[in-house]
Protein backbone atom coordinates (compact mmCIF):
# COMPACT_ATOMS: atom_id res chain seq x y z
CA UNK A 1 0.00 0.00 0.00
CA UNK A 2 2.80 2.37 0.98
CA UNK A 3 4.60 1.43 -2.22
CA UNK A 4 1.49 2.29 -4.20
CA UNK A 5 1.25 5.70 -2.60
CA UNK A 6 4.92 6.36 -3.30
CA UNK A 7 4.41 5.37 -6.91
CA UNK A 8 1.38 7.67 -7.22
CA UNK A 9 3.29 10.57 -5.73
CA UNK A 10 6.16 9.90 -8.08
CA UNK A 11 3.85 9.87 -11.12
CA UNK A 12 2.03 13.00 -9.95
CA UNK A 13 5.34 14.83 -9.57
CA UNK A 14 6.29 13.69 -13.02
CA UNK A 15 2.98 14.95 -14.34
CA UNK A 16 3.61 18.39 -12.87
CA UNK A 17 6.97 18.38 -14.62
CA UNK A 18 5.24 17.25 -17.78
CA UNK A 19 3.07 20.36 -17.80
CA UNK A 20 6.20 22.45 -18.02
CA UNK A 21 7.03 20.79 -21.31
CA UNK A 22 3.53 21.39 -22.58
CA UNK A 23 3.92 25.15 -22.61
CA UNK A 24 2.45 26.63 -25.80
CA UNK A 25 3.60 24.38 -28.61
CA UNK A 26 5.65 21.30 -29.26
CA UNK A 27 8.60 23.48 -30.29
CA UNK A 28 8.54 25.32 -26.97
CA UNK A 29 8.27 22.01 -25.17
CA UNK A 30 11.31 20.79 -27.05
CA UNK A 31 13.24 23.96 -26.19
CA UNK A 32 12.28 23.52 -22.54
CA UNK A 33 13.61 19.96 -22.70
CA UNK A 34 16.87 21.19 -24.21
CA UNK A 35 17.27 23.76 -21.41
CA UNK A 36 16.50 21.16 -18.76
CA UNK A 37 18.90 18.68 -20.29
CA UNK A 38 21.64 21.33 -20.31
CA UNK A 39 20.93 22.17 -16.66
CA UNK A 40 21.06 18.50 -15.82
CA UNK A 41 24.39 18.07 -17.62
CA UNK A 42 25.90 20.92 -15.62
CA UNK A 43 24.66 19.42 -12.38
CA UNK A 44 21.91 22.02 -11.83
CA UNK A 45 18.15 21.75 -11.92
CA UNK A 46 16.31 18.51 -12.42
CA UNK A 47 17.17 15.52 -14.51
CA UNK A 48 16.14 16.62 -18.02
CA UNK A 49 14.02 14.43 -20.23
CA UNK A 50 14.19 11.45 -17.89
CA UNK A 51 11.37 13.23 -16.09
CA UNK A 52 9.28 13.45 -19.22
CA UNK A 53 5.97 11.70 -18.70
CA UNK A 54 3.28 11.45 -21.29
CA UNK A 55 -0.10 13.11 -21.05
CA UNK A 56 -1.61 9.70 -20.50
CA UNK A 57 0.45 9.21 -17.33
CA UNK A 58 -0.78 12.55 -16.10
CA UNK A 59 -4.40 11.64 -16.66
CA UNK A 60 -3.98 8.44 -14.67
CA UNK A 61 -3.23 10.45 -11.55
CA UNK A 62 -6.12 12.85 -11.96
CA UNK A 63 -3.74 15.63 -12.93
CA UNK A 64 -4.98 17.95 -15.64
CA UNK A 65 -3.08 18.47 -18.81
CA UNK A 66 -3.48 21.88 -20.37
CA UNK A 67 -3.60 21.75 -24.14
CA UNK A 68 -2.37 24.51 -26.41
CA UNK A 69 -5.00 26.28 -28.57
CA UNK A 70 -3.54 24.50 -31.59
CA UNK A 71 -3.96 21.13 -29.90
CA UNK A 72 -7.50 21.98 -28.83
CA UNK A 73 -8.38 22.91 -32.40
CA UNK A 74 -6.93 19.62 -33.67
CA UNK A 75 -8.86 17.66 -31.06
CA UNK A 76 -12.09 19.42 -32.03
CA UNK A 77 -11.52 18.52 -35.68
CA UNK A 78 -10.84 14.89 -34.76
CA UNK A 79 -13.96 14.80 -32.58
CA UNK A 80 -16.10 16.17 -35.41
CA UNK A 81 -14.63 13.57 -37.80
CA UNK A 82 -15.38 10.76 -35.32
CA UNK A 83 -18.94 12.06 -34.83
CA UNK A 84 -19.52 12.21 -38.59
CA UNK A 85 -18.06 8.71 -38.94
CA UNK A 86 -20.47 7.33 -36.32
CA UNK A 87 -23.45 9.06 -37.96
CA UNK A 88 -22.39 7.69 -41.37
CA UNK A 89 -22.08 4.20 -39.92
CA UNK A 90 -25.55 4.35 -38.35
CA UNK A 91 -27.05 5.61 -41.63
CA UNK A 92 -25.21 2.86 -43.52
CA UNK A 93 -26.54 0.09 -41.28
CA UNK A 94 -30.05 1.58 -41.50
CA UNK A 95 -29.81 1.66 -45.30
CA UNK A 96 -28.53 -1.92 -45.50
CA UNK A 97 -31.39 -3.09 -43.25
CA UNK A 98 -34.03 -1.28 -45.30
CA UNK A 99 -32.62 -2.44 -48.64
CA UNK A 100 -32.43 -6.03 -47.43
CA UNK A 101 -35.98 -5.85 -46.08
CA UNK A 102 -37.20 -4.42 -49.38
CA UNK A 103 -35.44 -7.23 -51.25
CA UNK A 104 -37.11 -9.88 -49.11
CA UNK A 105 -40.54 -8.25 -49.24
CA UNK A 106 -40.24 -7.88 -53.00
CA UNK A 107 -39.28 -11.54 -53.28
Amino acid at each position, binding site marked *: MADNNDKKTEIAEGAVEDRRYRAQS*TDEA*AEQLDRDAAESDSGQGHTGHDDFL*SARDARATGEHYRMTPEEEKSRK*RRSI*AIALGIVAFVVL*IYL*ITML*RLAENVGG
Partner: protein
Amino acid sequence: MTDHLTDDQNETLAFNLAQPGDYFALLKPRVMSLVIFTALVGMVAAPGAIDNWPLALISLLAISVGAGASGALNMWWDSDIDAVMSRTKGRPIPSGKVQRADAFGFGLFLSVLSVIVLALAANYLAAGLLAFTIFFYAVIYSMFLKRSTPQNIVIGGAAGALPPVVGWAAVTGTAPLEAWLLFAIIFFWTPPHFWALSLFKSEDYEAAGIPMMPNVKGEARTKLEILIYTVIVAAIAITPVFFAFASWLYGAVAVILGGVFLAGSIRLYAAKDEAATMRASKSLFGFSIFYLFLIYAALLAEHLLGLHG
Protein backbone atom coordinates in the same frame (compact mmCIF):
# COMPACT_ATOMS: atom_id res chain seq x y z
CA MET B 1 10.72 16.68 -33.95
CA THR B 2 13.48 16.78 -31.41
CA ASP B 3 16.50 14.55 -31.89
CA HIS B 4 17.28 13.87 -28.25
CA LEU B 5 13.86 12.44 -27.40
CA THR B 6 12.91 8.79 -27.60
CA ASP B 7 10.36 7.71 -30.19
CA ASP B 8 7.67 7.46 -27.52
CA GLN B 9 8.34 10.98 -26.31
CA ASN B 10 8.27 12.35 -29.84
CA GLU B 11 5.02 10.51 -30.48
CA THR B 12 3.55 12.05 -27.32
CA LEU B 13 4.53 15.53 -28.50
CA ALA B 14 2.83 14.95 -31.84
CA PHE B 15 -0.22 13.21 -30.43
CA ASN B 16 -2.48 16.20 -30.04
CA LEU B 17 -1.77 17.79 -33.40
CA ALA B 18 -3.03 14.97 -35.65
CA GLN B 19 -5.73 16.08 -38.10
CA PRO B 20 -8.50 13.92 -39.61
CA GLY B 21 -6.70 14.30 -42.96
CA ASP B 22 -3.62 12.61 -41.49
CA TYR B 23 -5.74 9.58 -40.62
CA PHE B 24 -7.23 9.61 -44.11
CA ALA B 25 -3.70 9.61 -45.56
CA LEU B 26 -3.06 6.38 -43.61
CA LEU B 27 -5.59 4.70 -45.89
CA LYS B 28 -3.38 5.26 -48.98
CA PRO B 29 -6.10 7.08 -50.99
CA ARG B 30 -4.42 6.48 -54.37
CA VAL B 31 -4.29 2.72 -53.78
CA MET B 32 -7.90 2.90 -52.55
CA SER B 33 -9.00 4.55 -55.79
CA LEU B 34 -7.41 1.72 -57.80
CA VAL B 35 -9.13 -0.85 -55.57
CA ILE B 36 -12.50 0.87 -56.03
CA PHE B 37 -12.00 0.84 -59.79
CA THR B 38 -10.93 -2.81 -60.09
CA ALA B 39 -13.60 -4.02 -57.66
CA LEU B 40 -16.23 -2.09 -59.66
CA VAL B 41 -15.05 -3.82 -62.84
CA GLY B 42 -15.36 -7.17 -61.03
CA MET B 43 -18.95 -6.30 -60.08
CA VAL B 44 -19.94 -5.08 -63.52
CA ALA B 45 -18.20 -7.91 -65.43
CA ALA B 46 -19.95 -10.56 -63.32
CA PRO B 47 -22.81 -12.31 -65.16
CA GLY B 48 -26.29 -10.84 -64.81
CA ALA B 49 -27.16 -7.24 -64.23
CA ILE B 50 -26.63 -5.82 -60.77
CA ASP B 51 -30.18 -5.85 -59.40
CA ASN B 52 -29.51 -3.76 -56.31
CA TRP B 53 -27.18 -0.87 -57.08
CA PRO B 54 -27.40 0.79 -53.62
CA LEU B 55 -26.23 -2.45 -51.95
CA ALA B 56 -23.53 -2.87 -54.61
CA LEU B 57 -22.27 0.66 -53.92
CA ILE B 58 -22.24 0.04 -50.17
CA SER B 59 -20.28 -3.15 -50.86
CA LEU B 60 -17.84 -1.13 -52.96
CA LEU B 61 -17.43 1.32 -50.08
CA ALA B 62 -16.73 -1.56 -47.69
CA ILE B 63 -14.13 -3.03 -50.07
CA SER B 64 -12.38 0.33 -50.41
CA VAL B 65 -12.37 0.91 -46.63
CA GLY B 66 -10.99 -2.61 -46.14
CA ALA B 67 -8.20 -1.85 -48.62
CA GLY B 68 -7.51 1.43 -46.83
CA ALA B 69 -7.43 -0.35 -43.47
CA SER B 70 -4.80 -2.76 -44.73
CA GLY B 71 -2.83 0.28 -45.93
CA ALA B 72 -2.97 1.75 -42.41
CA LEU B 73 -1.76 -1.54 -40.92
CA ASN B 74 1.04 -1.61 -43.50
CA MET B 75 2.09 1.93 -42.53
CA TRP B 76 2.02 0.93 -38.86
CA TRP B 77 4.32 -2.03 -39.46
CA ASP B 78 6.64 -0.33 -41.96
CA SER B 79 7.02 3.06 -40.26
CA ASP B 80 10.73 2.43 -39.64
CA ILE B 81 11.55 1.80 -43.30
CA ASP B 82 9.09 4.43 -44.52
CA ALA B 83 11.16 7.01 -42.62
CA VAL B 84 14.26 6.05 -44.63
CA MET B 85 12.77 6.07 -48.14
CA SER B 86 12.29 9.35 -50.02
CA ARG B 87 9.02 8.10 -51.54
CA THR B 88 7.45 7.35 -48.14
CA LYS B 89 9.09 9.58 -45.53
CA GLY B 90 6.28 12.12 -45.77
CA ARG B 91 3.69 9.57 -44.62
CA PRO B 92 1.77 10.38 -41.42
CA ILE B 93 3.80 8.18 -39.04
CA PRO B 94 7.38 8.95 -40.14
CA SER B 95 6.52 12.64 -40.40
CA GLY B 96 5.35 12.52 -36.77
CA LYS B 97 1.72 13.45 -37.42
CA VAL B 98 0.17 10.19 -36.20
CA GLN B 99 1.36 7.76 -33.53
CA ARG B 100 2.18 4.19 -34.54
CA ALA B 101 -0.23 2.78 -31.95
CA ASP B 102 -3.04 4.99 -33.20
CA ALA B 103 -2.43 3.88 -36.80
CA PHE B 104 -2.58 0.27 -35.64
CA GLY B 105 -5.86 0.79 -33.77
CA PHE B 106 -7.34 2.75 -36.67
CA GLY B 107 -6.36 0.07 -39.21
CA LEU B 108 -7.59 -2.81 -37.09
CA PHE B 109 -10.89 -1.09 -36.29
CA LEU B 110 -11.60 -0.27 -39.95
CA SER B 111 -10.60 -3.80 -41.01
CA VAL B 112 -13.20 -5.37 -38.74
CA LEU B 113 -15.81 -2.77 -39.63
CA SER B 114 -15.36 -3.16 -43.40
CA VAL B 115 -15.63 -6.95 -43.25
CA ILE B 116 -18.80 -6.75 -41.11
CA VAL B 117 -20.42 -4.19 -43.42
CA LEU B 118 -19.57 -6.27 -46.51
CA ALA B 119 -21.04 -9.38 -44.87
CA LEU B 120 -24.25 -7.45 -44.16
CA ALA B 121 -24.48 -5.68 -47.51
CA ALA B 122 -23.33 -8.55 -49.75
CA ASN B 123 -22.52 -12.05 -48.52
CA TYR B 124 -20.11 -14.08 -46.41
CA LEU B 125 -17.96 -15.19 -49.36
CA ALA B 126 -17.18 -11.60 -50.32
CA ALA B 127 -16.59 -10.68 -46.66
CA GLY B 128 -14.30 -13.68 -46.19
CA LEU B 129 -12.32 -12.78 -49.31
CA LEU B 130 -11.98 -9.18 -48.08
CA ALA B 131 -10.78 -10.39 -44.67
CA PHE B 132 -8.25 -12.64 -46.41
CA THR B 133 -7.07 -9.74 -48.59
CA ILE B 134 -6.46 -7.55 -45.54
CA PHE B 135 -4.70 -10.40 -43.71
CA PHE B 136 -2.57 -11.25 -46.73
CA TYR B 137 -1.44 -7.67 -47.27
CA ALA B 138 -0.88 -6.70 -43.64
CA VAL B 139 0.53 -9.96 -42.31
CA ILE B 140 1.86 -12.16 -45.13
CA TYR B 141 3.22 -9.38 -47.32
CA SER B 142 4.14 -6.59 -44.88
CA MET B 143 5.35 -8.68 -41.95
CA PHE B 144 6.92 -11.67 -43.66
CA LEU B 145 7.59 -11.27 -47.37
CA LYS B 146 8.58 -7.64 -47.81
CA ARG B 147 11.81 -7.77 -45.82
CA SER B 148 12.78 -11.36 -46.50
CA THR B 149 12.66 -12.22 -50.21
CA PRO B 150 13.03 -10.54 -53.61
CA GLN B 151 9.83 -12.40 -54.54
CA ASN B 152 7.99 -10.16 -52.02
CA ILE B 153 5.92 -8.27 -54.57
CA VAL B 154 5.30 -11.35 -56.72
CA ILE B 155 3.58 -13.28 -53.93
CA GLY B 156 2.34 -10.16 -52.14
CA GLY B 157 0.76 -9.00 -55.38
CA ALA B 158 -2.08 -11.41 -54.64
CA ALA B 159 -3.46 -8.91 -52.12
CA GLY B 160 -3.67 -6.16 -54.73
CA ALA B 161 -5.16 -8.57 -57.26
CA LEU B 162 -8.06 -9.78 -55.10
CA PRO B 163 -10.42 -6.74 -55.17
CA PRO B 164 -12.06 -7.63 -58.53
CA VAL B 165 -12.73 -11.15 -57.17
CA VAL B 166 -14.23 -9.62 -54.01
CA GLY B 167 -16.37 -7.36 -56.20
CA TRP B 168 -17.49 -10.30 -58.35
CA ALA B 169 -18.32 -12.34 -55.24
CA ALA B 170 -20.21 -9.41 -53.70
CA VAL B 171 -22.78 -9.33 -56.51
CA THR B 172 -22.98 -13.04 -57.40
CA GLY B 173 -22.02 -14.89 -54.22
CA THR B 174 -19.56 -16.95 -56.28
CA ALA B 175 -15.93 -16.69 -57.41
CA PRO B 176 -15.64 -18.66 -60.68
CA LEU B 177 -12.68 -18.98 -63.05
CA GLU B 178 -13.60 -15.77 -64.90
CA ALA B 179 -13.18 -13.77 -61.68
CA TRP B 180 -9.76 -15.34 -61.17
CA LEU B 181 -8.75 -14.25 -64.68
CA LEU B 182 -9.30 -10.67 -63.53
CA PHE B 183 -7.15 -11.57 -60.51
CA ALA B 184 -4.44 -13.03 -62.78
CA ILE B 185 -4.21 -9.86 -64.90
CA ILE B 186 -3.30 -7.75 -61.84
CA PHE B 187 -1.22 -10.51 -60.25
CA PHE B 188 1.10 -10.85 -63.28
CA TRP B 189 1.06 -7.10 -63.92
CA THR B 190 2.44 -6.36 -60.42
CA PRO B 191 6.07 -7.60 -60.89
CA PRO B 192 6.88 -5.54 -64.02
CA HIS B 193 5.17 -2.52 -62.45
CA PHE B 194 7.06 -2.63 -59.12
CA TRP B 195 10.37 -3.84 -60.52
CA ALA B 196 10.37 -0.96 -63.01
CA LEU B 197 9.90 1.33 -60.00
CA SER B 198 12.58 -0.42 -57.98
CA LEU B 199 15.07 -0.04 -60.86
CA PHE B 200 15.04 3.74 -60.58
CA LYS B 201 14.48 3.77 -56.79
CA SER B 202 16.96 1.01 -55.96
CA GLU B 203 19.02 3.28 -53.67
CA ASP B 204 15.93 3.91 -51.55
CA TYR B 205 15.20 0.22 -51.21
CA GLU B 206 18.88 -0.49 -50.51
CA ALA B 207 18.93 2.13 -47.73
CA ALA B 208 15.79 0.65 -46.18
CA GLY B 209 17.18 -2.89 -46.42
CA ILE B 210 14.31 -4.18 -48.55
CA PRO B 211 15.44 -7.06 -50.77
CA MET B 212 13.97 -5.91 -54.08
CA MET B 213 14.98 -7.77 -57.22
CA PRO B 214 17.52 -5.19 -58.54
CA ASN B 215 19.33 -5.08 -55.16
CA VAL B 216 19.46 -8.83 -54.73
CA LYS B 217 19.70 -10.35 -58.23
CA GLY B 218 21.00 -7.35 -60.13
CA GLU B 219 19.70 -5.18 -62.95
CA ALA B 220 20.13 -7.69 -65.78
CA ARG B 221 18.10 -10.40 -64.04
CA THR B 222 15.41 -7.85 -63.10
CA LYS B 223 15.08 -6.71 -66.70
CA LEU B 224 14.75 -10.32 -67.87
CA GLU B 225 12.06 -11.11 -65.28
CA ILE B 226 10.19 -7.92 -66.18
CA LEU B 227 10.18 -9.09 -69.79
CA ILE B 228 8.93 -12.59 -68.86
CA TYR B 229 6.11 -11.26 -66.66
CA THR B 230 5.11 -8.74 -69.33
CA VAL B 231 4.72 -11.56 -71.87
CA ILE B 232 2.56 -13.46 -69.36
CA VAL B 233 0.33 -10.49 -68.49
CA ALA B 234 -0.09 -9.50 -72.14
CA ALA B 235 -1.22 -13.07 -72.92
CA ILE B 236 -3.54 -13.40 -69.91
CA ALA B 237 -5.17 -10.04 -70.61
CA ILE B 238 -6.55 -11.47 -73.86
CA THR B 239 -8.12 -14.57 -72.24
CA PRO B 240 -11.43 -12.91 -71.18
CA VAL B 241 -12.35 -13.01 -74.89
CA PHE B 242 -12.02 -16.82 -74.92
CA PHE B 243 -14.06 -17.15 -71.74
CA ALA B 244 -16.87 -15.17 -73.31
CA PHE B 245 -17.01 -12.33 -70.86
CA ALA B 246 -15.36 -9.87 -73.22
CA SER B 247 -15.81 -9.17 -76.93
CA TRP B 248 -13.34 -8.94 -79.81
CA LEU B 249 -13.29 -5.17 -79.26
CA TYR B 250 -11.80 -5.68 -75.82
CA GLY B 251 -9.50 -8.31 -77.35
CA ALA B 252 -8.17 -5.77 -79.87
CA VAL B 253 -7.53 -3.22 -77.09
CA ALA B 254 -5.75 -5.87 -75.01
CA VAL B 255 -3.56 -6.93 -77.94
CA ILE B 256 -2.53 -3.36 -78.78
CA LEU B 257 -1.85 -2.39 -75.15
CA GLY B 258 -0.02 -5.66 -74.54
CA GLY B 259 2.14 -4.98 -77.59
CA VAL B 260 3.09 -1.51 -76.35
CA PHE B 261 3.78 -2.89 -72.84
CA LEU B 262 5.97 -5.60 -74.35
CA ALA B 263 7.83 -3.08 -76.51
CA GLY B 264 8.60 -1.05 -73.37
CA SER B 265 9.92 -4.15 -71.61
CA ILE B 266 12.11 -5.06 -74.58
CA ARG B 267 13.48 -1.50 -74.68
CA LEU B 268 14.31 -1.78 -70.98
CA TYR B 269 15.88 -5.20 -71.48
CA ALA B 270 18.02 -3.86 -74.32
CA ALA B 271 19.11 -0.72 -72.42
CA LYS B 272 22.88 -0.90 -72.05
CA ASP B 273 23.92 2.09 -69.95
CA GLU B 274 22.63 3.53 -66.68
CA ALA B 275 20.89 6.56 -68.22
CA ALA B 276 19.03 4.45 -70.79
CA THR B 277 17.95 2.01 -68.08
CA MET B 278 16.61 4.85 -65.91
CA ARG B 279 14.71 6.35 -68.82
CA ALA B 280 13.27 3.03 -69.94
CA SER B 281 12.30 1.94 -66.41
CA LYS B 282 10.55 5.25 -65.64
CA SER B 283 8.73 5.10 -68.93
CA LEU B 284 7.69 1.46 -68.36
CA PHE B 285 6.52 2.24 -64.81
CA GLY B 286 4.34 5.09 -66.07
CA PHE B 287 2.91 3.00 -68.91
CA SER B 288 2.17 0.04 -66.62
CA ILE B 289 -0.29 2.19 -64.64
CA PHE B 290 -1.89 3.39 -67.87
CA TYR B 291 -2.02 -0.22 -69.16
CA LEU B 292 -3.89 -1.65 -66.18
CA PHE B 293 -6.30 1.27 -66.13
CA LEU B 294 -7.13 0.94 -69.82
CA ILE B 295 -7.50 -2.86 -69.75
CA TYR B 296 -9.98 -2.63 -66.87
CA ALA B 297 -11.65 0.46 -68.35
CA ALA B 298 -12.20 -1.45 -71.61
CA LEU B 299 -13.89 -4.29 -69.70
CA LEU B 300 -15.99 -1.82 -67.74
CA ALA B 301 -17.06 0.08 -70.85
CA GLU B 302 -17.99 -3.13 -72.69
CA HIS B 303 -20.26 -4.31 -69.90
CA LEU B 304 -21.81 -0.93 -69.14
CA LEU B 305 -22.53 -0.29 -72.83
CA GLY B 306 -23.74 -3.84 -73.38
CA LEU B 307 -21.19 -4.44 -76.15
CA HIS B 308 -20.06 -7.78 -74.89
CA GLY B 309 -21.62 -11.04 -76.01
